[in-house]
């Protein structure tokens, strides 16, 4: 059996990308979780973790080791298969999503034509994973959280997709690489400021960001792990790395969401002043958005569940529709 050179190279490339993406996701989870503890510490007039390593930089390692040494307890009466499958189902799509994101002109695992669609189809799976995890836990708090996560994600998928549809109408492509390429140049070329396409573009970005928070179950929309109501929500029964995977997935989802926001609205790897485009600009933009996610979480109380649905159905969806209509009209007129 002879394997062609290209096939082997392709396999190596694939393996490298898979390893690289998993490493990227894990690294982000580790250090975003450190940020998640350091940033609120600054807000709250304290120091945050500072014992492990210089400035607490090795704290994620300590956390990881602790999680790895813990036993994954499976509660009697729970659905063992689903219970163990759920964390995997949550983390895999998050990593898959990273595969189509163009980090720079040349860096990106796969440049496929339907990249945007791929991301939305993958990201729908993690909802299922969380739901199954909560359901299989055989715990009432987790079951309530499982029901909540579905209602919440359905409600927020709609405005999210409406905003994306409007954007795609403007860009005329699903290819993320091309979407970024269209935004080349200084910041007024970015989609967020593409006011000639629709004057509501900045608002569309805010809707996208809000929905992204809700989709990744982040505060103030963290209904599924509302600790003052549901103890730890869907993750109540998870211990050790079972919980660890959910944890990594949460941050991977934030990274995906922020990357997507960067790609779609903030000009991807392009510099705001048209200078030196590259990976660093992408990273700066993405991490600024990640900081905003953490910032929002530590500034506000949690919304009530009907408040969350009200926000989606009464505010975000109508606004997204208005934005969609306006974009269509502008396109027709242009």
């Amino acid at each position, binding site marked *: 059996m002879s394997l062609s050179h290209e096939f082997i190279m392709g396999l190596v490339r694939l393996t490298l990308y898979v390893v690289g993406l998993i490493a990227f996701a894990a690294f982000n989870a580790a250090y975003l979780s450190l940020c998640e503890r350091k940033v609120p*510490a*600054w*807000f*709250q*007039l*304290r*120091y945050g973790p500072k014992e492990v390593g210089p400035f607490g930089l090795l704290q994620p390692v300590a956390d990881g080791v602790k999680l790895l040494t813990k036993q994954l307890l499976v509660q009697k009466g729970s659905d063992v298969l689903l219970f163990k499958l759920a964390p995997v189902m949550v983390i895999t799509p998050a990593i898959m999503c990273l595969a189509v994101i163009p980090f720079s002109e040349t860096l990106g695992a796969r440049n496929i034509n339907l990249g945007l669609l791929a991301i939305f189809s993958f990201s729908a799976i993690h909802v299922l994973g969380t739901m199954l995890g909560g359901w299989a836990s055989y715990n009432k708090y987790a079951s309530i959280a499982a029901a909540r996560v579905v209602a919440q994600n359905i409600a927020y998928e709609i405005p999210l997709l409406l905003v994306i549809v409007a954007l795609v109408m403007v860009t005329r492509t699903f290819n993320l690489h091309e979407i970024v390429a269209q935004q080349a140049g200084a910041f007024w070329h970015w989609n967020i400021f593409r006011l000639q396409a629709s004057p509501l573009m900045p608002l569309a970005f805010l809707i996208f960001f809000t929905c992204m928070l809700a989709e990744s179950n982040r505060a103030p929309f963290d209904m599924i792990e509302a600790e003052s109501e549901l103890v730890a929500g869907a993750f109540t029964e998870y211990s050790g790395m079972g919980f660890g995977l959910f944890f990594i997935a949460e941050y991977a989802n934030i990274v995906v969401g922020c990357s997507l926001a960067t790609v779609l609205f903030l000009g991807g790897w392009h510099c705001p002043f048209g200078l030196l485009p590259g990976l660093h600009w992408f990273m700066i933009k993405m991490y600024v958005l990640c900081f905003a996610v953490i*910032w*929002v979480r*530590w*500034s*506000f109380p949690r919304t009530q569940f009907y408040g969350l649905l009200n926000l989606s159905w009464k*505010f975000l969806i109508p606004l997204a529709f208005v934005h969609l209509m306006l974009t269509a009209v502008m396109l027709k007129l242009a």
Partner: protein
Amino acid sequence: MWNYLKEIFSGGYSLLVGMWITLRHTFRRPVTVQYPYESLKMPARYRGHIQLVFDAATGQPKCVACMACARACPSNCISLEGHKPEGATRRVVSKYTLDFTSCSLCGLCVESCSFDALEFSKDYNLAATKKDEYVMDLMKQAQGKQEK
């Protein structure tokens, strides 16, 4: 419609104000005390566990074993013995035990003492691994402190 838009703007503005407040706090100095490295000085009236006061002139405890403190204690955690040495004008304490496991740090014993023979320790690092360590022999403790 107007109210609808007003709500969006006022609501959004209130969120921005909240974020601005938390961000502003970032630039203030942390208020926490990094405990094992730095510790606070206890105020003069801090009620720690009790200890015996020694007479500077004689080097002996001021306590005359009148049992007032033991009687005042709501939790009965003070037990002491005293004797009257020959030729002395007053009794001296020979054994003073504080069962810290049931002490509630109320300070009624110090208040009841008419000889100023009891004071509060300012030591608050009182973690121990065994219950026995909390049955404190105040005579011994005080001697240990004097030797230091």
